[in-house]
């Protein structure tokens, strides 16, 4: 009975999707917000990468909330998984190839991650993408040598401070009577590394926070002892 209703539900869903596709034009609607943003983003925010100006400028609050979701997820994972029993068995170290590779990759991943974060306002990339690479940089050695793990204390410290600094930068604008997360005037030369006002700073905060969070999250998941 359950299979039948499930199949029926899926059939209905398929019909709905097909009906919508039939009515939708397969071209995006001509006039939209993105177009308006493309026209003015360079002047208003000074970042060469318009997606960054949307992520950190026009939709800065969304980004802050997204960071909070990651933070909350990490907190809940810590809440749910609890502490590891010290007597639990550890996984054995990985083979030579993975260990050597992890040692070689660590500095490379760090550099690539930092580069992507710092150039987020100039080229595709940014805090999230770079942050994930940073997290990988710190997590791959843990995969290679499960005995060592990252220091959760440091991770939480970086996480908390980075998140607080994002909000702090946003609050600074409120001191001048402007709205939350208003970018400061004076944006420097378009296309230079030091341009776009506070946007690179915000992305650095994002990158550090995401990196610390994901590394901590992954480490927590991998530290969970197997069921007896």
């Amino acid at each position, binding site marked *: 009975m359950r299979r039948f209703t499930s199949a029926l539900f899926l059939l209905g869903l398929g019909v709905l999707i097909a009906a919508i596709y039939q009515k939708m034009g397969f071209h995006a609607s001509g*006039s939209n*917000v993105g177009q*308006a943003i493309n026209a003015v983003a360079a002047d208003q925010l000074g970042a060469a990468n318009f997606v960054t100006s949307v992520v950190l400028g*026009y939709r800065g609050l969304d980004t802050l909330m997204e960071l909070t979701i990651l933070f909350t997820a990490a907190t809940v994972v810590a809440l*749910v998984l609890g502490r590891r029993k010290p007597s639990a068995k550890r996984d054995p170290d990985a083979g030579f190839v993975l260990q050597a590779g992890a040692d070689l990759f660590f500095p490379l991943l760090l550099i690539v991650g930092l580069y992507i974060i710092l150039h987020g306002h100039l080229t595709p990339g940014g805090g999230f993408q770079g942050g994930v690479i940073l997290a990988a940089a710190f997590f791959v050695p843990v995969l290679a040598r499960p005995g060592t793990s990252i220091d959760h204390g440091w991770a939480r410290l970086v996480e908390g401070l980075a998140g607080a600094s994002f*909000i702090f930068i946003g609050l600074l604008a409120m001191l001048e009577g402007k709205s939350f997360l208003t970018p400061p005037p004076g944006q420097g030369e378009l296309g230079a590394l030091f341009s776009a006002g506070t946007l690179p700073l915000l992305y650095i905060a994002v990158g550090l926070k995401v990196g610390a969070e994901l590394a901590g999250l992954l480490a927590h998941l991998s530290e969970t002892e197997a069921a007896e």
Partner: protein
Amino acid sequence: MNNLLLLIALPLITAFLLPILDRVSTMLARLAGPVVLFITSAIGFWLWMQLGGQTVAIQLGGFLPPLGITFYVDQLSLLFAVAINVGTLLLWPDDGEDRLRRSILSLILAASGSGLALSGDLFNIYVFYELVAVVSYGLVASKSIPGAYAATIRYLIISAFGAVLVLTGIALVYQATGTLNLAQLAQLAPDKLNNLQGLAAFVLMLIGFGVKAELFPVNTWVPEVYATAPTRVSGLLAGVVSKLALIVIVRLLVLVFHQPEAQTVMLVLGILGVVTGELAAWRARDFNRMLAYSSIGQLGIMFIAFAIPGQAGVFAGLAVALHHLIVKPALFLLAERWGGSLEKLAGAARTSPLGAALFIVLALSLIGVPPFPGFWAKLLVLVHLGEQAQSLYYLGGLVILAGAALEANYLFRVASSFYYPDNKQELPPAHRRRDITIASVLTAGLVASVFVLSPLAERLDGIATQASDVPRYIQTVNPAALPEAQP
């Protein structure tokens, strides 16, 4: 009005810094949460008094709409922003294990709830909604019993499915209109969303947001979660968070999706919700489960009410919603010590006479017995249902009346069992001072409102009129027109 953003920024920055603060001084970390929430509630309340009859639009980052995100402040959104802050403060988690993490989660709940109430941008609403969801997963699972984890994962599955539905709906809306700003969507809707694509988007978002609003059929998580979560959390979820999700749906319905089919869908799902909820509550043999199903039934009534077109629907629905907002958390506070089999509650009046009295008052109001506010709220709904032309609305009215009869039956079954003079059974424990105090305050407020019913109703009417005033919304936000289409 820019200070309104403090309702989001302050709890959030406190939550981020709380682990560090805890290392420095546990006392400070313990106090920081309630103090911050008290401040935000005060700010919210003060701004509500200042607002008067105006409506204000706050542009985040100073970017003009529709480029940036807009926060729309009217009496309705501010009321619910204050409600979530006050609610979280009143139902602050107890000291216990993982106190720090649960405090962090509660702070984030207050921040995200405020954002959800105030936001005027479709995707921003989705992000706040997801944040509320993630926080609720954590709070529900915080009682580390296996049942809690199972209930949470089942809740997560349904909720994640709902989130994907909302995202798909947003994709459809953006495809059709090119904007995410609610005011601009209200402007463009008659041309661009009055078709199958618009209706499909609404249904997707209705079911997606409806997970939190305990809409039929995505409410299967409700009884399990309310049985295994800490009772404070259940009270907060059932009382306040569900109303926030409902208000989001109402905003979408009022501003953007004007098709009569949209209202029909809500009406049908509401009727099904009342029927299934009240029947299941009638059969429940467990206090928490009974409250959970009763919640589903009451939210069904709200969906039926909001399905009534025009200002009348918003007025009636708001009346039921605000009434439930006070009654349900109070009932869940009573359930803290009374949770469990209904048979075990016999003779409870002896150990907790105040609790029994409170339960009777709350039950009377919930059923809809005059002179309590619940009666007036339900009467309002029934009167406006009767004024409609479509016969489906009459069915809604009948269902509400039948539901009230069932409510009377099962609630009084429980209430009368409190006074059974049975000496053999073990009596249920008395309530804790803190729970019974808050429950008394809420019930006292309920009773007091009976005496100020007329001005209260006028105020509510004003709020509803303002909320359903679409041209005013558009004018307040005043989005710039989008540029002409590129070839």
